[in-house]
């Protein structure tokens, strides 16, 4: 699935936000705000992990 471009439409962003709203609410109901914060950081970390792997491969490719 192709990823977003720099000029992703605001509609797309809103879609992600709506989905996030649902998940954030669920996390909050599980354990209030700290759980919601953890959820957001975990989501971020997941993306970050995928990015880190790509960056590692890129560094290896460039010999850095």
């Amino acid at each position, binding site marked *: 699935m192709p*990823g977003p471009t720099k000029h992703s439409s605001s509609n797309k962003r809103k879609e992600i*936000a709506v989905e*996030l709203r649902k998940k954030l609410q669920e996390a909050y109901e*599980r354990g209030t705000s*700290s759980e*919601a914060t953890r959820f957001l950081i975990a989501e*971020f970390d997941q993306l970050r992990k995928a990015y880190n792997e790509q*960056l590692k*491969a*890129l560094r290896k490719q460039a010999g850095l």
Partner: protein
Amino acid sequence: MFTLQSITGEGFRGFPRKFNFDLDVPVVLAVGPNGTGKSSLVCAIEWCLFGADVETESHTGIPERKSWESRNRSASQCLVEMELSGNGETLVVHRSAPRSGKPDFWFRVGSSPPVHEGGKLKALLGGLEIEDFFTAIHLHQESLRGLLLAEPRDRKQDFYRLLGLASLLNQTKAIADAKLESLLEGVDEEFEKFEAALQGKVQGRQADIQRARQECVSEGLTEPELSRDGLSKVWKVLGGEVRQFCTAYSIKDCHFPDELPEKNPIQVAKQQLQKLRASCPVLEDRGQVLARINTLEGLRESYRNAETELGEAKAEIKKLPPDERDSSKLKQEIEKLGEDLEKQKKKRSEVSAKAAVLGEALEYFEEMGMKGRAKCPVCEQEVSSVEGLRQHYEKEIEQGIIPQLDKRIKDLQAKLRKAKEAKEKIEKLQEDVGRKDQLLSAQRSKIAKVLDRELSPKDDPVALLSGELKQLNSKKEKLENQVEKAEESLAGIDKQIERIAKVLELIRYQDDLASLSATRNTEVYRRTEQARLEIEEFVRAVETLSRSLTCTLEEEAEKRLGAVRDTIAQTFERLTGRSDFPRLTVSPDTKFAAQVEGSAGVADALSVLNQADTNCAALSIFLALAVAPSTDHKLGFLILDDPNQSLDEAHTQRLVEILSKISESRQLLMSTIDEALCDELQQRATKKKAIYRFNKWDAQKGPSIERA
């Protein structure tokens, strides 16, 4: 909505011992002087629900909550267990913290198993955070004043909580706490670092290419040769040179690749060069000649040294006096001297014995007074008298024979010692000569072996060696020209290999630069950038969500505040009874700053109200909002801590009226030092009441409590 049923425990703050309060009535009053433990009852509820968070100012907003201790210092453990009731179910919350050991927390709904996660209790109570509790449930004096005096941002949050919008507020707080923007900055910085490193490497490679090209040119390589095709031609030239060398020196085993190998061409070429050097007959001959010269020169040197050392050892013997050069003669002399010495010692011994007898006899004769002739028993010489014998004894024996014998013995001993020393020395020198002679013989044997001939005693090994060395040096000189020519050819091949290596280095740098420059067009780069954009997209979506939540929060706050605006105004009017500014208003438009309205116009509440009316304003807002139907949390009780502080009797009576009304919809737990307020509420409130009177407090026993 959950209401309080009971609270039990021990070792909590002002309660060193066990305590138990039945709270299953709509109005619970804790009354008594300051310092009797009323607040400990209220704090026990907070601690049971939120644990150690109630011990900090950051969570409670109460400045005195610094280094706050929940456990009573004389108690071994701190334990609070609370029972609540709501929606037909019983909720039991338990928390304990022993002096040493692990704290424990659990809650249980009905007969279900205990749950140990505090977050789940908060969720069960409608997302109740500690901040919500201290804003909407527990009317602490600090939070009461905060409604009017806090910074606009904090005040806004207090109002949102009072308006039952804690869930939305806490979710916006959760988003802010995640600090995703700063995490995104970290990602961007990391990518920028990568870009900078890539750029640095590109520049480094460009400089390498420039340097390598310059070196190639200075090695005489032409521009067309500085490419893969050109390099193949250079390689072929090198192959030709190698083959030519092999032909010139009749080297049969020559396998130089025709085409430039893909892997390690320089290593292949260097190995070939090494092979040529090892197989070249001229170089091999020269090597053998040099090795032979080396061996012979070494032997000649060693032989000369051995010869010199032997000569020196012999010269040492010659330095000795002639009578000390013969060890056998010295041996005979030692034997003779030994015999003489023994004889003299024996004689000396006999003389000593006889002299001793004579000495004693003389003493005897002299004591007896004997006179007349006598004969010396030592030398048998006749003496005319004993006196004469005495004189004879002293002169001839004591001063004559004995000293002479002693001197002779001493002389013999000296001679003997000298002879022994001389013998030892000559033997040592002879041994040294023998050893060096053996060494010389060994050198001769070696030379004979190397020269492959027998050596007679008349042969001079040095001369023989020198003769062969002369021949070898002559051979070496004859070889030199050929060697020089071969070395020149090999150096030419080596130089050609070095030139190929330089071109290869240049090509490697060019390939590397091409690869680095193409990095941004690779799939890996595209995926990395995509992954980075996905992170950014996520953070932007969270920002959008946060803005949307804030918008909803503000709209909902406006709506809910609108619904209770009149209640706030009426409560304020009833509490204060002011005619100039009877109406209190609060609006998001003024960032929730309280304003008063009246015949004199509109004014900021804080600028015109006295302290009592300021408290009334805060109480009006709190009480109107706390009992509003639209709340997120599920706690159906309010805790009021000295609510009539700074209020006079008239204000207090009006407050009682309002509290009586509130007690119809919310359970009230009120602590106060004011007996009058307690009595008034007891009389006015129509709901069932429990009154706990706190009297004297004792450090060992805790408070003395009576239930009225």
